[in-house]
C-alpha cells in the first residue's frame, strides 16, 4: 500500500506538532506526495500529552485518521506505553532512548530504533531542537522522504534567524540515523 501512517507523541513543549508539520510539509510540498496531519491536544499547553497523526501517500488522502500506525515516534515513556500497542506488528518504533525504557516483552516483530535526541540537542547547545534531531533521524531511518525535502521543510518552517542552527541539528539526526541503518 502506498499509504504510510505515522504517530508522533510526547509532552507538549517537546515539539511534537512542529515535527509533524515539518515531515508533512517535506512530503506534501517538497516531495510532491500527499500528507494529512491531525493534531490532538487538550486545553493545556506545556507538559501535557500531545500527539500528531500523519498520513503520507502517493494518492490523495480522504480518510484522515489513523488506527494502526506503521510508525510511532515516541518522545517520552507515556507515548510509548500509550501508543506502542496500536503499532502494526511489522511496524517501526522510533524512540528517545534516554526517555523511553522498552518493555522486556517488547514485540520482537517491531523494528526499534532509538536515539538520544535530547542529549544530542543539548550538546549542540539548545535542548529545544531535540525534535529537529528526531526528524532527521526519522528521515534517515525510514527513507520515507528525501533528505533534500526535509532540509527545505526545516528551512521553511523554523523561525527566521534559526535556520542554520536547526539545519545543524537536522544533520546530526540524519547522520545518527544513517549509522543505525548501516548497522542493521
Amino acid at each position, binding site marked *: 500500500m502506498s499509504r504510510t501512517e505515522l504517530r508522533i507523541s510526547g509532552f507538549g513543549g517537546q515539539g511534537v506538532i512542529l515535527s509533524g508539520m515539518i515531515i508533512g510539509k517535506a512530503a*506534501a*510540498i517538497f516531495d510532491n506526495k500527499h*500528507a*494529512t496531519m*491531525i493534531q490532538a491536544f*487538550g486545553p493545556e499547553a506545556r507538559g501535557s500529552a500531545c500527539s500528531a497523526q500523519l498520513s503520507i501517500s502517493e494518492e490523495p488522502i*480522504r480518510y*484522515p485518521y489513523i488506527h494502526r500506525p506503521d510508525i510511532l515516534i515516541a518522545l517520552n515513556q507515556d507515548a510509548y506505553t500509550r501508543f506502542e500497542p496500536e503499532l502494526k506488528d511489522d511496524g517501526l518504533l522510533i524512540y528517545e532512548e534516554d526517555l523511553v525504557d522498552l518493555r522486556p516483552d517488547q514485540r520482537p516483530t517491531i523494528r526499534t530504533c532509538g536515539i538520544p535526541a535530547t542529549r544530542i540537542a543539548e550538546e549542540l547547545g539548545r535542548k529545544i531542537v531535540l525534535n529537529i534531531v528526531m526528524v532527521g533521524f526519522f528521515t534517515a531511518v525510514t527513507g520515507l522522504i528525501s533528505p533534500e525535502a526535509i532540509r527545505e521543510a526545516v528551512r521553511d518552517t523554523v523561525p527566521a534567524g534559526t535556520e542554520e542552527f536547526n539545519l545543524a541539528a537536522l544533520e546530526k539526526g540524519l547522520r545518527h540515523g544513517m549509522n543505525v541503518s548501516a548497522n542493521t
Partner: protein
Amino acid sequence: MKADPKGVLTGSHFIDGDHACAEGALAAGCRFAAGYPITPSTEVVERLASRFPTVGGIFIQMEDELASSIAILGAVWGGAKAATVTSGPGFSLMMEHIGLAVMTETPCVIVNVQRGGPSTGLPTLPGQADMMQARWGSHGDYEIIALSPDSPQECFDLTISAFNLSERFRVPVFVMMDECVGHMIERVVIPDPDEIEIVPRRLTDVPRGGEYLPYRLDGDLIPPMTHAGMGHYPHITGLTHDERGYPAMNAETQDTLVRRLCDKILKNADDIIEIREDGVDGADIVVVSYGITSRVCLPAIREARAKGLKVGWLRLVTVWPFPDRLIRELAGRVKALVVPELNLGQVYYEVERCAQGQATTHLVPHAGGAVHDPEDILRVIEEAAR
C-alpha cells in the same frame, strides 16, 4: 473581477483549515475583521491579525461576540468586505446581529468552527451541532447561505465562495467548519490572483446627492447598495422598511419585504447549491454527509461496496439553502438514505422531510467530541440494506 494581488499568497502551503480560511478571506478582498478569539477558531483571527497590516486591512479584537458581529456590519456600510469568526457560545451571541444583517441586507461572512456544545461544551473537540442554529438561530423568517468545507483546501476555496455569494445576494453567508477540518493540516494551493474570481459589491449608479432609494429593486431581487461617503445618506434599519429604507410597520410591507428576503435565495437555490457525489447513479443506498463526516464515512462505504452493496456518496457542500429537489428526486430512485452527522439529528430531519417517505431514512448520530467510528456507519448502511 479578479482578486487583488496584495491579498493573495500564491503558492503551495502546508497549513490547517483555520489558516486556509484566513487566506481565503484575504484573497476574497476581506479587509476588515472583528472577533473575540475562541477555540477552535482562534487561528483564523490570529492569521488575519498578522496578515491584515500587510494589505491595508484592519482587525479589531472586540470586547465580545456581540460587538464583533455588529462591528463588521458597520464596516460593510463603510465600504469594506468584512468577516467575523467564532465557535460555540460565540455563535449564540451573534444571532441578534445575524438577523440585523439579513434584514438590512448587509453582505458579510461569518465563520463558525464548530465544537461540541451546548454552552461552552468541548472547546477543543469537534461537533456539527450548530447546523440548525445557522439556519434558524436568529428570530423571524429568513433564508441564509451556509457552506461546509471538508478540507483545508476547501476552507480556502469556500471562504472565497462565501464572500462572493454574500455580495451577490446581499446576505450573511456562513462558513460552517468543524474542529477537525479547522485543525487538519494539508497542502493548500493558492492560485494566481488572476485565476481567482471575485464578485464586487454592486453599488448604485445614482450620483452623489441624487435620489437613491436603498431598497428599490433594479432588475432582480437584490437592490444595489451605497456606502457611507457616497453622498446618499440612506436610512438603514432593522425595522420592517419600505424601499426608501424608512420604517413601515404594517402587514403589507412586511409581506413584501420578508418574501423578497426569502425569494432572493430560494429562487436562486439551484444556482447556489453545490454538491459532490460518487457512485450515486445506480446506488440502492446513498450516504448523505457534510464537513469532516463526509471523509469519515468513506471507509464504511468502501467496506459496504466490498460486501456487494450498491452504496453512493453524496456530500453537501452547500447545506443551506437545503437541496430539497435533489434529495426528493434521489429518494425516488433509491431504497435508503443514511445520514451520519456529529449531532443527534439535524440535517437528517431535512433529508427525511425531502424524502417524503419514498425511501427509508437512517440517522447515524454522534454527540460530538470525536468523529464517528466508520464501523458504526457501516452497521447502519447494512441495516438500511435489509
